[in-house]
């Protein structure tokens, strides 16, 4: 099992807001292998970002709590680490790129001042070593005139350049795992392609694993080796990227794929999945997707489906239950026979 950099087992997170509590993450399982890019897909509010923040230990201490489960980083459970211990990991062995490059850099400090922070905290380096290191990394992420940019302020850079700066910030200490939370959502399409290309390149060069969080299936197809599909705080499907696109098993994933606008056809109306994601407070027994699922039957509303494995392809849907399959086949046969 040592080829897994990150392993999240049955993670449950609870939020408290005054007297109200909610569980945005309920029993999430996934892992990231060495050198692999894992995509986490799902619509807004499905718990992608909460999951990634929990891996970074960045959930708000007062209002959130990891109820159960473990987060194994290099086979060490980090979910209950003390803040001081966690700090040694952050920006060092695990680093993170955020969605909004425009607001993720501090406006009143130079790029160099901000980038020196991880090295200052984690490596014993002199000032000039730090500076040289930063310039080297800025060059590595493809920023021109790195020697000048290091002394400039964030507002002097464009969005794409700022995201490159963010990537170099995450890269400085050669992390084993980089989490990218919607790294290209705020950028326009041409810059998006450049940033994705860059991420791919540095991942290989630095021999690290990448956890890519996105709602964009085309980004997943382009970047990822394996995909985890999340819905309403649960992992509903997990598969190798080609397998997932060829044979999506969960009705939610199928819906997502159908919602993609295709290049070849011009439809007057785009497909969308009916209904809305249930609020965490509304979720009870049964499959979380049942209320929107076109194939839902009685069992879906009554019992929560377990994860059914088909090789490495996992999905949480009663349709994948061998017993259910048999019944359905019999029904079909009887319809044909009659």
């Amino acid at each position, binding site marked *: 099992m040592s080829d897994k950099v990150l392993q999240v087992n049955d993670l449950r997170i609870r939020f408290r807001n005054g007297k109200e509590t909610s569980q945005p993450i309920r029993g999430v399982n996934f892992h990231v292998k060495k050198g692999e890019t894992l995509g986490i897909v799902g619509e807004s509010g499905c718990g992608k970002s909460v999951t990634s923040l929990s891996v*970074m230990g960045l959930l708000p201490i007062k209002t959130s709590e990891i109820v159960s489960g473990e987060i194994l980083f290099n086979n060490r459970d980090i979910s209950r680490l003390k803040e001081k211990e966690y700090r040694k990991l952050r920006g060092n062995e695990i680093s993170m790129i955020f969605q909004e490059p425009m607001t993720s850099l501090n406006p009143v400090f130079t790029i160099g001042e901000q980038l020196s922070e991880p090295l200052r905290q984690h490596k014993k380096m002199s000032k000039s070593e730090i500076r040289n290191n930063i310039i080297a990394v800025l060059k590595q992420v493809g920023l021109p005139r790195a020697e000048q940019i290091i002394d400039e302020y964030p*507002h002097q850079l464009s969005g794409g350049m700022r995201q490159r700066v963010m990537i170099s910030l995450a890269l400085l200490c050669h992390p084993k795992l980089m989490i990218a939370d919607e790294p290209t959502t705020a950028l326009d399409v041409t810059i998006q392609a450049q940033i994705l290309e860059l991420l791919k390149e540095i991942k290989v060069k630095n021999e690290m694993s990448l956890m890519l969080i996105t709602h964009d299936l085309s980004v997943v197809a382009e970047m990822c080796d394996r995909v985890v599909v999340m819905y309403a705080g649960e992992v509903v499907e997990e598969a190798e990227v080609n397998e997932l696109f060829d044979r999506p098993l969960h009705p939610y994933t199928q819906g997502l794929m159908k919602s993609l606008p295709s290049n070849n056809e011009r439809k007057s109306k785009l497909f969308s999945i009916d209904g809305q994601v249930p609020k965490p407070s509304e979720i009870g027994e049964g499959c979380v997707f049942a209320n929107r699922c076109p194939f839902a039957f009685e069992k879906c509303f009554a019992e929560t489906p377990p994860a059914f494995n088909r090789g490495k392809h996992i999905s949480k849907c009663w349709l994948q239950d061998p017993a259910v399959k048999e019944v359905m086949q019999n029904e079909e046969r009887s319809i044909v026979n009659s």
Partner: protein
Amino acid sequence: MLDFVIKRLIQVGVVVLLALTVVFFLIRLSGDPTALFLPPDAPREQIEEYREKLGFNRPIYVQYGDFMVNAVQGDFGQSLRSREDALPLVLDRLPATFQLAISALVLSLLISIPLGVLSAFRRNSIFDRIAVAFTVLGQAVPSFWLGLLLIYFFAAQLNMLPSGGAGSITHLLLPMVTLAAYSVARFTRFTRSTMLDVLRKDYIRTAKASGVPTIRLIGRYALKNSLIPIITLVALDLGTLLGGAVITEVVFAWPGIGRLLMQSLMNRDFPIVLAGVFIIALIYAVINFIADVLYAYVNPQIRVK
């Protein structure tokens, strides 16, 4: 940057001239001061004669023009009462006012910034609640009352500190505390709210994700951002403090500009009032000018534009 400085300096001049103009006309509304300087039973001719001597018989626009021409050259005339030059009289009081204002400001900053930061960092804790309650109290208590209370306890009852006058550190303490109380309350509230704002920003999360320890996160990364709005507030308050904390100076018989102005207004000693207004307006405008320059220093986004 030079453009910016020159433009703002011109504004300083305009502000001061406008302030003088407004006060010049407003003060005339209080009537002719001539009679005040003569015995009540002075004959009419004597009053007329005196009025002519002081120039109050001329049309008001002529008086205004005359005043402005002289004022621009630094001549505000002589005190109607003591016949001394008005401007030096006011300038004489400046050191005392400065001493009081600066010490009150330093005291309030020393207390309020750490208090506000801590309060924001530990928001909704007992500490935060007590701090917020005190700031509300501090803003609500009028300074004349606080001043009198302090005099009552520390001077009258405990006999620890002098009740008024100037000259030593012990004289400074009570008026300084009185004056600082309001600023402490204002600055603390403001620091707390800007700090809360900043702590929610994405870049704070970024810094956290880089492994920055909490103390450094707050003391360096969050503080500098929240200082920007605080500078403006401090500049405004310092202007007010230096402009003579009139009430505090009167309560503690502090020999500053505020008390002088108060007395001159009572006496309708126009030249002194106008010289005082000139100095106060100038200080106010210059401090705001300095705040703008400081602002540009702290916030690079302004610097470049």
